[in-house]
C-alpha cells in the first residue's frame, strides 16, 4: 500500500566546506528524528565520505538514510546523485574522487572539511578541493550514475548559481533526468511560472541544509510502499502508482 513518507534528500554534513561545523552525522540524525523525517540523504559536494557515518548514526532509529552526493560538474551544474546502496556509492565515490580538481583545500578560504569515522570515532580533515568542480561533464555524471542504478536530480534549478538552467539554459532532452529540485524559497507553481521550460517535469524540494536548523525546511512527500531507494526511484519517475510532491 502506498503511503506518504517525508524525505529531505539534500543535506550537507561538515564535510562540505560551506557547511557549518555543527553538521556532524550524529547531530543531523538527531535533528531529523526531532522533526519526524522518515528519509534523508547526506549530499556533500563531490564526496560521499560521510554517508556511512550518517547511516551508522541512524542505525536502529528508524530514520532511513539514502546514499547521496551533490556533484559539481565541469559545466558547474550541481546535481544530486542518489545511489541504490553502499557498494554503488563506493564505486561512484571512487569515480568522482579521481575527477576532482587538483590541489588541496584552503580552509581559510573555502571552509573546513571533516570526515567522521564510525569505526574509530576519529574526525579528520579531508584535504582535497571539494569546493571546485569535478572534471566530469553533466552527461558523464548522468550516464555514470545511471550505469550504477542510481538517479540524478539537478539541484536548485531556480537559482542563478550552479543551476542547470542558469549554466546550460535548458535541461538537455537526451539525458535521463526524471526530476528537478527547486530550492526551498520557491513553490512549484512559482517555479513553473518563472521557468516555463520545466513544465511537465517532476519537481522536488529539499532543504540543501548547511546548518542544523535548515534541515527539513525544504522537504518532499514520497507516496511509496516502503522507504527504500527503489521505491524513491519509482516515485521520482512517477511509475507504478508512486508519486512525489513538494511539501
Amino acid at each position, binding site marked *: 500500500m502506498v503511503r506518504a513518507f517525508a524525505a529531505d534528500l539534500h543535506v550537507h554534513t561538515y564535510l562540505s566546506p560551506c557547511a557549518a561545523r555543527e553538521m556532524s552525522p550524529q547531530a543531523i540524525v538527531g535533528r531529523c528524528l526531532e522533526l519526524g523525517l522518515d528519509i534523508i540523504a547526506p549530499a556533500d559536494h563531490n564526496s560521499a565520505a560521510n554517508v556511512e557515518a550518517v547511516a551508522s548514526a541512524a542505525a536502529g532509529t528508524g530514520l532511513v538514510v539514502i546514499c547521496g552526493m551533490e556533484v559539481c560538474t565541469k559545466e*558547474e551544474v550541481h546535481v544530486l546523485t542518489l545511489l541504490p546502496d553502499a557498494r554503488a556509492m563506493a564505486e561512484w565515490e571512487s569515480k568522482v574522487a579521481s575527477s576532482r*580538481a587538483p590541489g588541496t583545500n584552503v580552509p581559510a*578560504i*573555502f571552509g573546513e572539511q571533516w570526515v567522521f569515522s564510525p569505526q574509530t570515532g576519529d574526525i579528520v580533515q579531508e584535504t582535497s578541493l571539494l*569546493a*571546485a*568542480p569535478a572534471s566530469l561533464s553533466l552527461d558523464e555524471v548522468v550516464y555514470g550514475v545511471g550505469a550504477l542504478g542510481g538517479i540524478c536530480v539537478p539541484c536548485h534549478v531556480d537559482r*542563478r*548559481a*550552479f543551476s542547470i538552467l542558469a549554466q546550460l539554459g535548458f535541461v538537455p532532452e537526451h539525458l535521463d533526468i526524471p526530476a528537478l529540485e527547486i530550492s526551498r524559497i520557491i513553490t512549484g507553481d512559482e517555479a513553473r511560472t518563472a521557468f516555463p521550460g520545466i513544465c511537465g517535469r517532476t519537481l522536488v524540494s529539499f532543504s540543501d541544509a548547511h546548518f542544523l536548523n535548515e534541515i527539513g525546511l525544504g522537504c518532499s512527500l514520497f507516496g511509496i510502499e516502503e522507504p527504500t531507494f527503489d521505491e524513491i526511484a519509482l516515485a521520482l519517475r512517477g511509475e507504478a502508482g508512486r508519486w512525489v510532491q513538494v511539501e
Partner: protein
Amino acid sequence: MTVREIADTLGFRCVAGGRSLDREVTSGYASDLLSDVMGNASEGGIWLTSQVHQNVVAVALLLDLSAVVIAGGLEMNDDGIARAEAEGVPILSTEMSAFEAVGRLYELGVRGDL
C-alpha cells in the same frame, strides 16, 4: 593602473571591498566558469564575470586577484558582498555588457596573459 583609476574612468560602481581600491591591476581575465578562472587567471588580475555568488569572492581570494567586475547590470548576492567586504576584495559593478566592459578595459591598457 589601480582598481580605483579603472573604476573612476569607466564609471564602474564599487559595491564592496572599497578599502582595497588602490591595488595595482596587472592583467585581465574574463570567464564565467570558476574552474577556468582558477586554472588560468593571474595574481593581481581584474576578473570580469556575470557570476554573482560568494564562491566568486573565494576564487578571487585564492588567486589574490586585484578586483572582480560584475558586468551586465547584475548584482552580487548578499553573501558575496559581505564576504568581499570582510576580506577587502573590490567588487565593481557596471551596466555595460561583458563584451563592452572588456573592450573598455583593453582600451585603458589592461591586457590578458598571452
